[in-house]
């Protein structure tokens, strides 16, 4: 949904694509044994990368009802038959949303969106007004309730100013502050988006204000480059982290095992 980022400036970065970097960074968010609500595309690659490396017992749940999926091919949709075959459990969607998600069993939810704003609110509904949209997007799917209930949410989105406005046109999935009100005031069970993984660096929510602030950069990226692609006056943490590039093993898994046809890493 975000347009392709310009190729990174330095040589080191040229050895891997922005998508590969994002997938590797997202995978590092996952601890062994955690229960993850997985979406298609980069989140799915990240989860299966984590399973192949540090988190073999990661439990992947898809909103389609597959629990503990071990897809033997790259699933191209959230309801791919490869998510069923060999999974631990298949349940109804009523169970997915009531017994797993609303019950508080999901530790991590990955989300993306056409717009991500200053508070980590996500818009996947419309660009423009709801009644007369310039662009009609697919809508919430399960994103609204994942953003509310998952114990923590990780957002994955490429940076550009249109995709990172100060405030979303439509608030599909709540972040840290929704139209002026905090998650606590609104009574939301989960911690909300605690990290935004972009193609240039990582934003994290400031525990006090709830605002998404820049906390780490990818190799070869300058702060100004991030600021130029964000629609609000971006706060920058004094000690900025430097994110390690994908390891050889991360790249091998991504390229040779998980997405050899470059469906999502292209």
């Amino acid at each position: 949904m975000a347009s392709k980022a310009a190729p990174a400036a330095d040589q080191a970065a040229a050895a891997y694509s922005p998508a590969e970097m994002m997938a590797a960074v997202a995978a590092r968010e996952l601890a062994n044994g955690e229960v993850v609500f997985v979406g298609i595309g980069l989140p799915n690659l990240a989860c299966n990368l984590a399973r192949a490396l540090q988190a073999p017992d990661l439990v992947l749940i898809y909103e389609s009802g597959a629990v503990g999926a071990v897809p033997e091919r790259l699933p191209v949709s959230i309801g791919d038959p490869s998510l069923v075959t060999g999974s631990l459990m298949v349940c109804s969607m009523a169970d997915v949303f009531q017994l797993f998600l609303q019950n508080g069993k999901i530790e991590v939810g990955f989300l993306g969106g056409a717009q991500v704003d200053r508070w980590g609110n996500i818009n996947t509904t419309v660009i423009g007004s709801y009644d007369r949209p310039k662009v009609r997007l697919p809508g919430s799917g399960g994103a609204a309730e994942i953003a509310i209930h998952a114990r923590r949410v990780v957002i994955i989105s490429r940076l550009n100013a249109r995709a990172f406005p100060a405030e979303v046109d439509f608030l599909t999935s709540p972040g840290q502050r929704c139209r002026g009100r905090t998650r606590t005031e609104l009574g939301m069970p989960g911690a909300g988006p605690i990290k935004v993984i972009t193609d240039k660096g990582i934003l994290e929510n400031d525990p006090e204000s709830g605002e998404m602030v820049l906390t780490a950069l990818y190799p070869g990226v300058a702060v100004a480059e991030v600021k130029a692609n964000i629609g609000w006056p971006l706060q920058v943490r004094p000690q900025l982290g430097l994110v390690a590039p994908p390891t050889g093993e991360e790249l091998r898994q991504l390229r040779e095992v998980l997405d050899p046809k470059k469906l999502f890493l292209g």
Partner: protein
Amino acid sequence: MHSKVTSMREAIAAHVHDGDTVVIEGFTHLICFAAGHEIIRQRRRDLTIARLTPDLIYDQMIAAGCARKLVFSWAGNPGAGSLGAFRRAVEKETPPLEIEEYSHFGMVARMSAGAARLPFWTMRNYMGTDLPKANPLIRTVTCPYTGEVLATVPALNPDVTIIHAQRADQFGNAQVWGLLGVQKEAAFASKRVIVVVEELVDQSVIRADPNRTLIPGMIVAAVVVEPWGCHPSYAQGYYDRDNDFYVAWEDISRNPARLEAYLQEFVYGVTDRAAYLRKQPELRDRLAAKDLICAGVNYGF
């Protein structure tokens, strides 16, 4: 008891009427394209079409002019992009289409309420989102024990729900495995249910493994035997999803003329699903499922 087995043509003619609220359910898995195509061929009009993910089949029904209104929670081309006819209808009103929008949990809850014949369903949801502003049917209720304010959605009770299953007997006792979606809830919520199956089996097959039965015959009005009736969706154990077609739909649906040509060739231009399959003899080679049969369990006592 009389057999409920009939043709798709008869089933749609008898049970889907102009102005009805129609649900063809199935989450990625077991979406009955054959039924959607027959509805288009029979030129039903003013339908309210509801399902979580409109998918390509509702995009086709919108393009064909069957739908007055769409009730949904995610309107995209799963894994591939957009639904062209849906987007034109909403962005450019060509043709106009009323929409009523929820999240997946909201749609599941609407079906659950309908299936239980309750007027509403309760969730902890929607706080902070703009969805209740966009849809005033998302409301709240106060817990009589804790005083908490919780979200509600109203029951959905379709006039007719169409469910594709792997197998059923002639009375509509239907068994499903793999992804279950909200098919059970949608069927029980509905005034009439059409069950479409890959295989008609003797009732003894159903009775040999009663825990697999998802839909009991008592709520089924008609049984249609339609092998490969889900293509380009899939049926676990029978055939794979035709991802190439989902990808191709991006281009087809972006262009109204191309979409119309698709409908002319593959929907209006064939008499039924058998003819649709005869046009595409390569599908079997490309998509037929491999065997991976699980062991049975002991029902003895």
